[in-house]
């Protein structure tokens, strides 16, 4: 057993896989000698050497392109894009090249690669360094999309993402970096596409991701005091999406809420809402409700940012109010 932070779990998970697979390499800006700007890759250079852990120029297209070319010629790669906002700088490479090439070539190429990136708000970095962009990746056919909420999931889902033969965009949440957990000994491997019911409940279903998971749990605790029993589901991966777990839960509770950090329009919550509204319509006892960041860029000031992201209070109040409605 070791106690690890979420941040340390990243390096832990990568190290586990680099020990297993001598071909696995990684590249990114300031990831080697400096151990990453979020200190998520500390120690990897020392253990695996500069041929396998490489610092790059500020050239996101070249980074992701190199990952693509190496992966398609048999070398599995982990590429770091420092902040998820910067996915925009290499979006062609990700959305148009990596995601589509397997299909376009009728299966001639595979992309065993992981694009790791620091996602989300709460650290007062402002509009260009705080976005939650899981929905950007989710909307592109061909990508898999993972976003862990705990140190153990970081390790297990990292291992699963690395071993997955398809391209995975792996979102590490900036505001969870310092959270801690006990990590069991031995290899940790998880599976993509399995949501986890992190709290059982019978009255409402709340689907959340990453930083929103602890907030949803806190809100659920508060709801309990009001006699509302909330089931909280940590989605963990958006693609593949564990719709079975979601739909079963809604079948039981009849009420569905999503808690999203991305801005409102076309977020992943909309997708889930649409799935539930179509497939569980007759089981619903009330409208499907999304709790999201409003459709605005994120402000930098602490006071403003705290108002923008879905808070425990907002989750709690939205759900309580929904029972009063109609």
């Amino acid at each position, binding site marked *: 057993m070791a106690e690890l932070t979420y941040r340390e779990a990243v390096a832990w998970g990568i190290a586990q896989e680099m020990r297993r697979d001598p071909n696995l390499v990684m590249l990114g800006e300031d990831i080697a000698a400096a151990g990453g700007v979020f200190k998520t890759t500390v120690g990897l250079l020392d253990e695996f050497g500069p041929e396998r852990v490489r610092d790059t120029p500020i050239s996101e297209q070249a980074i992701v392109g190199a990952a693509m070319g190496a992966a398609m010629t048999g070398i599995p790669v982990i590429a770091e894009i420092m902040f998820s906002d910067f996915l925009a700088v290499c979006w*062609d490479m990700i959305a148009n090249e990596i995601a589509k090439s397997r299909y376009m*070539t009728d299966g001639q190429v595979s992309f065993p690669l992981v694009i790791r990136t620091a996602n989300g708000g709460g650290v007062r970095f402002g509009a260009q360094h705080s976005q939650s962009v899981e929905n950007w990746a989710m909307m592109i056919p061909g990508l898999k999309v993972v976003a862990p909420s705990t140190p153990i999931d970081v390790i297990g889902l990292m291992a699963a993402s690395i071993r997955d033969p398809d391209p995975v965009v792996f979102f590490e949440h900036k505001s969870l970096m310092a959270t801690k957990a006990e990590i069991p000994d031995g290899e940790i491997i998880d599976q993509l596409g399995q949501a986890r019911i992190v709290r059982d409940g019978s009255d409402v279903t709340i689907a959340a991701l990453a930083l929103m998971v602890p907030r949803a749990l806190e809100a659920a605790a508060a709801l309990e005091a009001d006699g509302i029993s909330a089931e909280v589901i940590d989605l963990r991966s958006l693609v593949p999406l564990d*719709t079975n777990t979601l739909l079963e839960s809604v079948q039981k509770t009849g009420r569905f809420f999503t808690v999203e950090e991305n801005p409102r329009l076309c977020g992943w919550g909309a997708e889930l809402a649409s799935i539930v509204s179509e497939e569980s319509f007759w089981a619903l006892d009330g409208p499907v409700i999304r709790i999201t960041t409003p459709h605005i860029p994120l402000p930098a000031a602490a006071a403003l940012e705290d108002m923008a992201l879905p808070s425990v209070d907002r989750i709690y109040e939205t759900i309580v109010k929904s029972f009063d409605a109609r």
Partner: protein
Amino acid sequence: MPTDGRYDYALREPRLPRPVDTTLAGAAIDLDTRLGMYQRLHELRQFEKRAYDLFLQNLVKGTSHLSLGMEAIATGFGAAMRPDDYTFATYRGHAHALARGMDMGQAMAELLGRENGVLGGKGGSMHLTDVSKGMMGSYAIIGAHLCVANGAAWSAQMRKSGQVAVAFFGDGTTNIGAFHEALNLAAIWKLPVVFVCENNLYMEYTPIDVVTAVGNPAAGRASAYGLEPVLVDGNDPDAVFLAARTALARARAGDGPSLIEAVTYRSGGHSRADPGKYRPEREVSAWAGRDPIPMYHQRLLGLGTPEARLSAIERQVADAVDTATEFAKAGREPGEGSLHTEVYADGGSKWRN
């Protein structure tokens, strides 16, 4: 209506070709290689012409970008590359695919969108790929594949396989950001990659010099990456072959990337719908006089190859193109079955349980 070159590029000074370098006849290239290149030139030419015919018959849908007039570049490189080297091409990639040995029938069938196409009809003309031949794909958005070629080269470097990645792209591509990022990374990591700019003087319909800060869009930028400028006659297979051999050897020796600018001209339009009217007539006709095929034909005759041998090659190629066309036409339209396959490595497209 104003009538200057800013309104109509056809009114500009024509960019004329340089004369053939006749000393190349004496280059140390053995006859088999040269005859192979002669055959290749014809394959590329006749394949593209047939593709154009099939388009006129409305059998090729969508768009296609032919290499007519530009065949010497793919040919020279194809002859110089090792079978396990990697090619990364653009939407104008038929020639490069065939030059690596892609089956003509499968290529043609792909243009026709048939099930027996090399991509089962999923990719089409702009994405020809045959990994079994080292043809790692044709990329239709400008710039990206230079970065991808780096990755393949990096992989070869790590695997110590001695393979080289070659990325072909146009003059217009030198002005996009990915070009810059790719060249810099290749240089600092000394990657075994060769960047080949096929400078045909135009992007789609805009002359390259109108939009480029230096006269030679690739060679004029080599020094920004610590590289030597290399300019070659892109209509002379021997010139290209020699430049390719040098660059490939350099890459294999661990001495890093090269950036080659091969100057050429496309005899037709940018894509199937383009009559190419933005080019001065005198320019078009001057370059028509520098067509690589008659030039190379002359060179081979001059080196003592009998005309009969050359015409036998031409006939053989014509038969092969006919056979390929029959193969393609005989293919079935792809069915619903394949629509949902190969999005993911499990062969399917399932994103949920």
